[in-house]
Each structure stands twice: as structure tokens, then as C-alpha cells.
């Protein structure tokens, strides 16, 4: 049995938050009164948050893209990153 906990919630950027692409592996997440510099994996994850993909779908997509990386580690990274932004009210889950 898989240890993975399914997460079908769909994250979307909160109102007034916007991603500004800087380069292929760098982005700025612009929020009211601040900004977050996202590099590498973080930049890739944010680019996949479109208000349609679920946390699971994003995880699977990244696992397919990075077959040489450990699948469970990618799952943890995605979850932690999304939770961190959710805690800052930058990301919301769609109703």
C-alpha cells in the first residue's frame, strides 16, 4: 500500500498575487507589500499552479519530468512548498 496521502485540493494564487517570470528557473511571486524570490524547484512548482491542477496532479507531473529524482521526495517538496504559501495566505484552495 502506498504511503502517499492523496491531495485533490486545487491551489490557486490569492487575489492580488502574481508571478513574474525572471528566467527559466527563477520567478518572483509578487504579493501586496512584498515579493518572494523563487528559484529552481520552487519556481517550477509555482509555474504549475494554475487554478485547475490539484496538488496530486502537480506532483505527478513533476515526478514524470524528473524521473531521476526520488518520487517520494518530490511529493514532500510540493506539499511543503504549497503549505508554506498557504500559511502566508498567498495561496488558497479552490472551493
Amino acid at each position, binding site marked *: 500500500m502506498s504511503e502517499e496521502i492523496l491531495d485533490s485540493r486545487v491551489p490557486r494564487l*490569492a*487575489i*492580488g*498575487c*502574481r508571478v*513574474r517570470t525572471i528566467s527559466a528557473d527563477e520567478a*518572483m*511571486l*509578487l*504579493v*501586496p*507589500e*512584498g*515579493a*518572494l*524570490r523563487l528559484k529552481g524547484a520552487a519556481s517550477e512548482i509555482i509555474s504549475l499552479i494554475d487554478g485547475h491542477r490539484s496538488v496530486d496532479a502537480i506532483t505527478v507531473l513533476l515526478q514524470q519530468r524528473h524521473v531521476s529524482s526520488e518520487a517520494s521526495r518530490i511529493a514532500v517538496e510540493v506539499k511543503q512548498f504549497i503549505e508554506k504559501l498557504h500559511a*502566508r*495566505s*498567498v495561496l488558497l484552495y479552490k472551493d
Partner: protein
Amino acid sequence: MEPKVTPHETASSTNSIPGPLSLVAEITHRCPLHCVYCSNPLQMQSSESELHTEEWVRVFQQASALGALHLHLTGGEPLARHDIADLVRAGREANLYVNMITSGLGLTADRLRELEDAGLEHIQLSLQDADEQKANEFAGARAHARKLKLAELIRTRDMAFTVNVVVHRENLDRLEEIIAQAESLEPQRIEVAHVQYYGWALTNRDRLMPTPSQVERSVRLIAEAQSRLSGRIQLQAVLPDYYARYPKTCVGGWGRQMMLIDPSGLALPCHAAGIIPGLEFDSVRRHSLQWLWEESSAFNRFRGHDWMALPCSDCDRREIDYGGCRCQAFQLTGDATSTDPACSLSDQHGKLVAITQASPAGNSQWVYRILANS
């Protein structure tokens, strides 16, 4: 709590000075309100001297090229400019995050839609109190009821909404009601800011300075509200630095993160910098933003720490708060290079403590912010 980025190297610059992160555009000093704690300078710019639309557009493009991320359209009242929607659009086209700080006066449903269509991303609406009569007294205008109506309009639009409230001696006893009213407007964010004593607020300091017990209570109430609202509304607080142990990192450090352009195009390192004698400010009408940021004497005057005297020059906090606020140091000690007296390590700190412990000035009259006074 807010995510912040550190100043960064800009692509356009070969110089080692990192570019600004935000551009504060004081697009006009005209305002229908006359708030007794306005942060504008006592000497304000007339409407005749204001930059034209195309001059602002150029400024926004140059700021973005220099590395700025956020554009804060403020005033005065930004809505007093007829070209406000064009300025919002120009900011977005320059790839900046566009925020507008407003009293709301002059805003209608049509105008709000126009601003939304132009790409406004964040709007900050000010409240002066929860009590209508008091709110109107502090603003010197009958504005409160209108603001509450406007909030209903704003929250239906696709933009982030912050309610700003300035607190002081004469409204702090109603802080719970103030937070409750702000909350009822359903913004994403609430900012509760204790008055900072510059400009008009310094003039009215005797009536605005809170008592120590008011400050103590406000800290507790704000913490309670923050935990109650967590996950729903982000509540941010600015505490009064007169009561602090260490000074605030004013504007993120002189010439490190922020550039302010006044209505006439003068480039300033902070809102109040004009009060410091001997500083000369250059204009965007004659210079590029890159030159103003990197080369102008005003921005270099207190950059880094070569200008510091003891105790700052030896202090391990000198890269944390950069000696605090230069304007406050000048206002309270007469020397802009001295340690900000808000710092407990300043030999002038006692002066500041004495001000906070002075008894309320009973019958002193408000001095209202009036353009014609200047």
C-alpha cells in the same frame, strides 16, 4: 510576517549598488482630506509643478529597468489626478506590481472599474476611526460614511484590498471597535499603524502621542486579533518607535530599497528627507532614475555605514537597522548623523522617553494639513 526579498543586483547596472525594490510615486499633493497626521511634508508641491503623464510613464519604465518590483501610487490623493487610470496602465506595462493608496474620495463604481481594467492589483483604503464624528474630525472632512460605502464596491472587484488605520492617543481607546469595523469591510489585509512623527504628525504630536498604557493595550489587542483572524485576514501592525528598544529599519535602509518621487519629480530616499538641511534633491526632469539612485548626492549621503558615528559605527546592529531613521535623528537631536534616539543605545534616548511620559496636552488645537498653508 510579510515575505520580503533582499535588494538585488540589477541586469541593467554594472555598478555594485543594488537597485530599488519599490518606487513610491507621490503623484500629487492635492487631497480632499486634511489629516492631522499626514506624512506629506509641510511644504507641499502645487498642482502646477506636477509631472505630466508622459513624464511619469518614463519614470515607471526606468524604475522597472532598475529592478523595482512594486509601484505605490500615492499622494495626496492619487484620484485627484485625471490620468490615474493611464498611470496604473503604464505601471503594469512596465511590469510593475501596481498598488494605490487612497482616501477613496473621488472614487465611483465607474472609476473603480476603469482602474481594474487598467490593471490595478492592490488598493489601500484609509479609515481614521470607527466613530464617524471622530473620524471626520481627524480627517478634517466628512469622509467616513463614504469610505464604508466604497469598501462594499471594492471587495467585489478583482484586486487585493487593504484597510489602513492610523492609531494615536485620541482613537486608541476604540481600537477593538476599529478592528471590528475594518474586519466587517472584508479586506484581505488590515494595517494598523501607530502614527510616525514626521510632517503634520510632528506638528500635532502633543495630541497624538499615546500613553504607555494605551500602547501596551494596543500590542495585546493586535496580537489577539491576529490570531483570531489568522487564515482569513492578514493583520499587520506598525508599532510606535518612540516606545521601542531599537530603532526601525527606516525605509529598509537609506538608498537600499525604496525611492520616492514627489509630485514635481524630485527623487527622495524617504518621505521626510526634505527636512534634513544640506541635502539636495535632483529631479527626474533632468536625470535618469539610474543616475538619481546610484550617483545623486542625496541617495549617497547615508548609504552604507561610513557616515556613522558611535555608537552606531561599532554596533553589531548597524547592518540590521542602519542607525534607524535619519529624519528622526535630525528632528530630535539637530544632527542627522547621530543615532536615532528611538535606540536605547542613543545618549539622547532620554529625550524621547520624556516625550512619551509628558502629560496630555488638553486644549491644544489640531493643525490641519492644508496645501495653502505651505
